[in-house]
């Protein structure tokens, strides 16, 4: 089986093995469960880091192919569905991000109760889907892993969530599945127009892009299907409403993984499938979605200003930030798209950090309403400082990831030759002020000022596992913020084919 000689497949195998290991553990043996989980997560991080190194070596060695580590094994002969693997810079950094967040998530859910075993089972099933999505270049397997990643959310929220969890879980699942319904139709349509010679249909997106055979009228029909399908997961206005409720009800680690990684699947798929395969329709219809995403940037930021639930605030800020991702992708130039990927990284890490901290604060104060808290900086300085750092990252402080990402997006978008896009970019830039407003509002109310509730004085600061979980993310955020060129060099070249495809139809 040459498939097993490919490093990528182990990104799926490791979580599956972890699942098996967890299945073997006793329900009560919490230590064994934790041990297995940590081992799996660590192995993933190690592999991801090794993948980055390998990728850089390959590129340095002059491997200029669009995707490296390509392997393709026939799976469904009659339909020409293959198990095709391959990564380019974007997927590499996405895998790295996912690995980090899974790692942090395991530690963030250290004291998970009840049913820790089942929790980690679903948790790793979800990450299996995520990694599988990023490593595969075959539409069918991509879609399969995509849904594998979606469905565990239902039980993770439903069983371990809080608040109005039944409603939120069902709403989230149904809306995302609705998105994937669009997606499935789009993929089937792409499949049947993937080639000009009938009977040679293929699901491999590299081949599809190479054939470039999708008729224009079909593109106009399939592009919205796929883009909306992924856009729902990318929290694109007006399909974002699952996100506030879902995040508010989800347990900490799940919010981390969902906002940190799962929402990235949306942005990733948008350009990897929708734009890359259907450049013509992208050029034609791009402005519609550009408008929507532009709305969601400002809209999300404004709605975040008046929320009082910490998780709602972050959910809406996620809407704003993820809107920026799609916004940049729709600018169709490599700089803006690079910025989009940086924004995915940055948003993934910092939102995960946010949700981790919120979870820890909630675990202590048992409230998420900022009106009932205050002056926590006096009581839990570690968490407080962490929150401030996350806030600075979110409002784009130089030296942290947010600034780099947003600036790349703005500069790249403003390079667009069309005035409409440039004006839109300026409209989008206003979000940096609004972001500052709501972030500082929360920090001021939550951490500064006098202690609101005297019972809070008895609370403790973060313990070891929580420190590990948050420190991982903070360091990652700082690294991206201080050495962006390292990541940009990995990412940028990956967009050359997409941009070429886009310019060729102009």
């Amino acid at each position, binding site marked *: 089986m040459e498939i097993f000689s490919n490093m990528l497949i182990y990104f799926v195998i490791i979580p599956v093995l972890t699942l098996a290991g967890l299945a073997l553990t006793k329900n009560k043996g919490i230590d064994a469960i934790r041990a297995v989980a940590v081992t799996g997560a660590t192995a993933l991080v190690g592999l991801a880091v090794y993948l980055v190194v390998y990728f850089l070596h390959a590129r340095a060695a002059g491997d200029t192919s669009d995707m490296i580590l390509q392997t393709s094994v026939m799976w469904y002969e009659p339909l020409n569905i293959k198990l095709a693997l391959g990564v380019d810079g974007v997927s590499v950094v996405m895998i790295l991000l996912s690995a980090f967040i899974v790692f942090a998530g395991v530690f963030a859910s250290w004291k998970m109760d009840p049913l820790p075993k089942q929790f980690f089972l679903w948790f790793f099933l979800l990450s299996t889907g995520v990694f599988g999505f990023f490593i595969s270049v075959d539409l069918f397997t991509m879609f399969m892993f995509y849904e594998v990643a979606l469905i565990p959310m239902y039980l993770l929220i439903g069983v371990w969530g809080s608040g109005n969890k039944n409603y939120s879980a069902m709403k989230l699942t149904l809306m995302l599945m609705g998105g994937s319904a669009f997606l499935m139709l789009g993929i089937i349509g792409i499949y049947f127009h993937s080639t000009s010679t009938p009977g040679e249909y293929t699901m491999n997106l590299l081949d599809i892009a190479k054939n470039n055979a999708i008729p224009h009228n079909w593109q106009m029909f399939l592009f919205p299907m796929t883009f909306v399908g992924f856009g729902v997961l990318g929290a694109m206005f007006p399909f974002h409403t699952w996100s506030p409720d879902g995040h508010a009800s989800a347990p900490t680690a799940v919010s981390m993984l969902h906002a940190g990684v799962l929402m990235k699947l949306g942005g990733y798929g948008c350009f990897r499938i929708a734009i890359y395969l259907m450049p013509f329709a992208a050029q034609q219809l791009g402005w519609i979605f550009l408008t929507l995403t532009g709305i969601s940037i400002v809209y999300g930021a404004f709605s975040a200003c008046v929320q009082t639930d910490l998780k709602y605030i972050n959910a809406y800020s996620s809407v704003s930030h993820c809107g920026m991702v799609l916004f940049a992708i729709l600018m169709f130039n490599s700089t803006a798209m690079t910025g989009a990927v940086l924004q995915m990284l940055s948003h993934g890490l910092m939102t995960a950090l946010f949700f981790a901290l919120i979870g820890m604060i909630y675990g202590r104060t048992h409230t998420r309403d900022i009106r009932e808290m205050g002056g926590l900086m006096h009581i839990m300085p570690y968490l407080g400082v962490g929150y401030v750092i996350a806030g600075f990252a979110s409002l784009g402080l130089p030296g942290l990831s947010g600034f780099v990402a947003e600036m790349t997006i703005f500069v790249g978008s403003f390079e667009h030759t069309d005035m409409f896009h440039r004006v839109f970019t300026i409209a989008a830039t206003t979000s940096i002020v609004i972001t*500052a407003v709501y972030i*500082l509002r929360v920090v001021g109310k939550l951490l500064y000022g006098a202690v609101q509730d005297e019972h809070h004085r008895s609370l403790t600061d973060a313990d070891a596992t929580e420190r590990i979980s948050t420190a991982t993310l903070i360091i990652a955020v700082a690294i991206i913020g201080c050495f962006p060129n390292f990541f940009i060099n990995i990412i940028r070249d990956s967009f050359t084919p997409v941009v070429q495809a886009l310019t060729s139809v102009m």
Partner: protein
Amino acid sequence: MPLSSTIYVLAIPLFMFLFLGLVGVKMPRKITGVIGVLGMAVTTVWAYAIAFTYFFGNGEGQMLDGVRQQVVATDWTWLSFYADKLVVKLGVLIDPISAMMLVVISTVSFMVHLYSLGYMSDHDGNPEKGFQRYYADLALFTFSMLGLVVSTNIFQMFIFFEMVGVSSYLLIGFYYGQQPANHASKKAFIVTRLADLFFLIGILILSFYTKTFDFKEIMGANGHDVCNAFTSAQGLTFMGCSVTAWALTFIFIGGAGKSAMYPLHIWLPDAMEGPTPVSALIHAATMVVAGVFLVARMFPLYVLEQGAMDIICVVGAFTAFYAAAVACTQSDIKRALAFSTISQIAFMMTSLAVSSANGKLLGGHEAGLGYMASMFHLFTHAMFKALLFLCAGAIIHAVHSNENSKMHGLHKFMPITSIAFLIGCLAIAGIPPFAGFFSKDEILVACYEKGIGWGLWMSMVAGMTAFYMFRIYYLIFFWKKHEVHGEHAPKDQPWTMTVPLIVLAIISCVAGFAPFGKLVTWDGAQLETHMNWPIAGASVGIALIGIGLATMMYWKENPLPDKLATMFKGLWTASYKRFYMDELYQFITHKIIFQSISKPIAWFDRTIIDGFFNLLGNVTNSASFGIRKMQSGNVQGYVSYYIIGAVLLAAVTGVVILCF
């Protein structure tokens, strides 16, 4: 000392920040303070060495036939938006103004570091809570400010604009436990952030047309032959004005935010909630002149865009007057000093702006006099305003209040402070031979060259300056006898606090004789300046009048001020309430942004959009409820549906197939 080693001037404070921030919290407070001071001392010495090397050394590329060149010491590619063009570099650019700023920043910063050892401790000398954080933040600010002035490209400048904004946020909010500090820090950050937004937009536009961020590439190697991309972009217009005018105006707004130009000044008075040394460092000497520095840095471009220049001119002149008028009535000494700061920075802005008319520099052989004067005033003002603030700090530390009603007649109790403060007042009032006299004189000359109106206006403001400064002075140190509360009477502070006062006082006395025209000019060439006696005499006269008025009203306790206050009640209250600018901002932020935009959007999101998706679910449910009668449980009903269905199927199909 090679200029390339300037990087260490930045590296030391950065290291200090990380060290004190991460490790320091575990160390005893006193130690961290001392470490911070020592680190800053090294930085200062190093900075002096650099400045000396630049001004008086003759390394290769520094001097080119009598014209000082810009030297790029280091340039590290930090973030490359495109592989070839639009690269953000972090580097060090040494030219007259940045070298001067190095001196200013390091000097004041060192003084403040030293001073804070005493100020941030109680009377028994025990440092207060958060001492380490305080020094870490100070180091962070110093690093950011130094990085700002040595920027090699406009984007690096933007980055450090953000950095100084954040460090100022942290320092203003040092006492985060208290609501006022909390609000003030938030306000400062958001207002400056708003300005930075415009700065960013300006950068975007500029870089879009010039395809570069680098100062040297835009303005030429020696800083005054502008690249063609820019000049050709001047032709393009957007909504009537040339795109470059838009860009430069936006960039100026960015600077105006930091430099507290009207109407973006409102954050500065509140910023006084921070510890007083912080006010001295950030909100008097260094950060607030960042805007001026920005405009000065891009001076050659502004010269080409008269429109932008005029805007700056008007804004500056108005701000100078406005702030001076407000300062005349403030009872909180720090606020009063803050407004005087605003006024003085406006002086600098104006003098930059007046030095050109319709695209050319004014003043024949004294071309660029305004530029030189502005930088000169920046230098001197930093010194004496820091001095004044530190004195105020000493006083506040002694009487535990900012209100001058709590002070009065402190002269006997704290003579050193009193003298130092007096020197500061004389300097700012422009009395020879103190520093302020020379710089302000040059500014006025430049204004008169632009036009007599500008000159008169600024002279009037200069007079007001003298008046309100001495008003403060008298109200603090004389007016009436100080009644002592509590056990110990106020006295001069420990040496850590008095030494900086003395040093700065000396500098304020002598700084005026510095040969600025030879050192700091817009194109690096030497500039022959000579006293313009009529203007100088006139300005001194006006200053004396102002002082005289102040003496008449505030030297000894008398009812005159209250009489005047009641006579011009409306005016007085308006000025006391800073002409209601804060209320206006309150209205905009709360009533408009929160109530009228955010709330409705949030409602819309929950009700309309979310409601729509819930509606889908409800419709499905009600539909399933509606059709349940079909399943009546009665077989006859079943077969009726059956037969009807079958027949319909046949009929409809038949019609469709046979007719179409």
